[in-house]
C-alpha cells in the first residue's frame, strides 16, 4: 500500500495540473448560504476541503437531478426523424475531490441498482466508470455521523480510489486503486510519505471512529418477517409528523429512484431521467387513478422498509444507508432514521 505526501503548498498547483486530464467535481459553499454543495468545479475554482459535508449528497456526480437520456425530432425534413437518439455525452475522466468516505461507499449501494447482471443503466455506469473518487477522511465526525454502524465509517476506503487524510500542513494520500494512482500522477503528487504514514493514518482512523457518538442497530430487523414489520402498529406514530416532502430522499446519497419524463418543444423533444421520491403520491399512482400507496403512512413505511428491511433481505449486505446523517439534519419535522431503526429493531 502506497502513501503519498502532499504538501498543502502543492495542493492548488496539483489540482490545477490535474484539470488537463480530468473534469473536477468538489464541494463549494453556495453563494450567500451557510451550506455547501458538490458540483462540477468551474475553471480556476478550488474544492473547499473545509466544506465537505454538502447539503445534498455527491450522488449527483453520476446521478444528476435531471439528465437527458434521449432526444428526438418529428420533423420529416430531418434525417433522424422519429428516431430516439442518445445525445452526445461527456464521459471523459472525472474526479470527485474531497468526497466523504461514506458518500463514496454510497456509490457501491447505488451500483447494485444501476449495474445488475440483467440491466445496466448506461448513463450512471458510464459516468461512474469515468469517475475517480479522491476521498477526504473525516477526522472530526459530526454528531449525526453514524457511519460506523453501517459498514462504512469516517476512513472507509471501500468506495474510494484515494483516501486523503488531513495532517495539518499536508495531506497523506493513501492509494487504494490504480485509478487513484493515475490521478495522483496527473496532479504531479508523487512524493512518498515515508514508513510511518500508514500507522499515523491508522491512529487517526481509530481516533475518529471512537469520536462517533451516534449508532444504530438492525440485527433484530433481519430476523423479523417482512409482514410483521409491515403490519406493525408503530408506523402511525412514526409517520404522523411527516409532511411528505422529498427532502430526505433528495439529500440522501443512496436514494436512487427516478422518473422518466418527455419534454417536447415544437417538433423536437427530449426524454429525461429526473430524481423522484417515494414520499410523493405521484410516485406510485397508476394510469387508472388507483394508487397502491395512497396514504402518507404507506409512503413513509415504504421508505424505511426499503432502506432498513427489503434492501437488507435482498442483498444481504446490511442496510441501504451509509450513516451520513443528512436526512436527519434536513428533515423539516425531525423524523430521525436512527429512531425509526431503533423502533423497527425493538
Amino acid at each position, binding site marked *: 500500500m502506497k502513501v503519498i505526501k502532499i504538501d498543502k503548498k502543492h495542493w492548488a498547483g496539483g489540482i490545477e495540473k490535474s484539470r488537463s486530464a480530468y473534469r473536477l467535481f468538489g464541494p463549494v459553499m453556495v453563494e450567500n448560504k451557510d451550506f455547501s454543495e458538490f458540483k462540477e468545479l468551474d475553471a480556476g475554482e478550488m474544492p473547499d476541503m473545509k466544506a465537505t459535508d454538502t447539503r445534498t449528497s455527491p450522488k449527483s456526480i453520476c446521478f444528476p437531478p435531471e439528465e437527458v437520456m434521449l432526444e428526438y425530432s418529428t420533423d420529416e425534413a430531418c434525417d433522424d426523424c422519429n428516431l430516439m437518439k442518445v445525445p452526445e455525452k461527456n464521459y471523459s475522466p472525472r474526479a470527485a475531490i474531497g468526497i466523504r468516505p461514506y458518500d463514496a461507499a454510497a456509490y457501491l449501494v447505488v451500483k447494485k441498482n444501476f449495474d445488475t447482471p440483467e440491466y445496466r443503466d448506461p448513463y450512471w455506469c458510464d459516468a461512474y466508470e469515468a469517475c475517480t473518487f479522491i476521498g477526504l477522511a473525516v477526522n472530526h465526525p459530526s*454528531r449525526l455521523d453514524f457511519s460506523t454502524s453501517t459498514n462504512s465509517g469516517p476512513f472507509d476506503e471501500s468506495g474510494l480510489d484515494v483516501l486523503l487524510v488531513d495532517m495539518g500542513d499536508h495531506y497523506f494520500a493513501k492509494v487504494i486503486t490504480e485509478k487513484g494512482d493515475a490521478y495522483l500522477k496527473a496532479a504531479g503528487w508523487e512524493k512518498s510519505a515515508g514508513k510511518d504514514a500508514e500507522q499515523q493514518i491508522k491512529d487517526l482512523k481509530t481516533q475518529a471512529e471512537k469520536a462517533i457518538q451516534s449508532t444504530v442497530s438492525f440485527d433484530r430487523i433481519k430476523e423479523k418477517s417482512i409482514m410483521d414489520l409491515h403490519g406493525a402498529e408503530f408506523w402511525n406514530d412514526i409517520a404522523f409528523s411527516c409532511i411528505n416532502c422529498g427532502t430526505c430522499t433528495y439529500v440522501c446519497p443512496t436514494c436512487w429512484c427516478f422518473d422518466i419524463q418527455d*419534454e417536447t418543444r415544437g417538433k423536437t423533444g427530449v426524454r429525461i431521467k429526473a430524481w423522484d421520491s417515494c414520499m410523493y403520491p405521484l410516485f406510485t*399512482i397508476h394510469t387508472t387513478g388507483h394508487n397502491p400507496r395512497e396514504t402518507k403512512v404507506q409512503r413513509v413505511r415504504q421508505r424505511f422498509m426499503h432502506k432498513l428491511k427489503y434492501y437488507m433481505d435482498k442483498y444481504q449486505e446490511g442496510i441501504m444507508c451509509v450513516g451520513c446523517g443528512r436526512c*436527519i439534519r434536513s428533515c423539516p419535522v*425531525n423524523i430521525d432514521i436512527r429512531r425509526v431503526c431503533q423502533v423497527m429493531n425493538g
Partner: protein
Amino acid sequence: MLAYIDKIKEISDRLLQEKKVDLIIGFRKGTLPMMNEPCFVRSSADVKNLVWDSNCGINLANYLTNRKEKIGVIAKGCDSRNIVTHIIENKISRDQLVIIGVPCKGMIDRRKVYAAAGQEVTEVVEQSDAIVIQFAGGEKTVKKTDVLQDNCAICIHRNPVISDEMVAEPVEEQKGVDRYEDVRRVEAMSPAEKWNYFEELLAPCIRCYACRNACPLCYCPTCFVDESKPQWVGKTLDPIDTRTFHFLRAYHCAGRCTDCGSCVRACPMGIDVRAFTKKLEKDALELFGWEAGMSLDVRPTLDTFKPDDPNTFIK
C-alpha cells in the same frame, strides 16, 4: 413560555380523561437541538411526552386537514389563524376542535443559532429571554430576540385569535412594527432587478416541496405540479418550471397566508420563501384591509365582492 408546559399537560390530561377529545396534537422532544417534532397523544399516560419551548415553530393547523376525530390542538397565534382559515375553508369543523391557546413570544430560527455558534451545536438551553448555545469546548449566550425567526420578529398577532382553553394570560402584542420594509425594497426595484432578485432567490431550489407541504394552506388533493393528465409543469430544475411552481403556489396563498413562517423553516436549502407570500399579504391588507384568519365570522376577501367595487371587471 417555558412555564406553559405544565398547564398544557394539565389541560391535555383533563381533555383526554373526560373524553372531550380523542387525541391531542402537540410537540414532543426532537433528537436534534432546536427541533421538536409534531406528535399526537391519545392517552393520559403519554401526556408526559408533550413539550413546549421556542422550538415549536411548525404550524399544527397543517395536521388537522380532513381529520375525523375530536382533537385538542395546541395553537400559537399563527396556528390559531390557520385553524380559523381551515374552519372557514371546511377542512375541519369548529366542533371537532378544542383549541389550547398558547400566547407566543416567538420561535427560534435554528439557522441563526448555528450562525451565532459558528460550529456544531451540541445543546441549546432556553432561559426566559436568553438562549445558551453549547458546543464542544464552550458555550455562548445570545438574546432570544436576536435569533427569532424573521416572521416572529415582526409578528403582531402573538396571541391566539380563537381558543377554548388558554395556557396563560395573553402576552403584549408588538406595536409599531414595520412589517413590509423588505417588500417595499423589492417593489422599488426595476423589473430587471426584480427578475434577478427572484432568480437568485430560487436558484438553490431542489423541488422537494417542503415549503408547500409544511404550509397549512396547501391541502389540495392533487397539487397542480403533480397533475399528470395534463401535466402543467415540468419536473426538472429548469428555472421556468421552478419559478412556475413558486409563483403559482404563492398566488394560491394570497389573502390566506398568516405569515407563520413554516415554509421558510422547512426549506432545506435556506430559501426565503416568504419573499413571495409577504407581498401578497401586504396587497391583501392595503387593497382590501384584510388580514387572514382573524375571525370565523367574516368571509375571506377573495371569496366576496361588493356591488360598489371600484373596479369594473366584476360588474
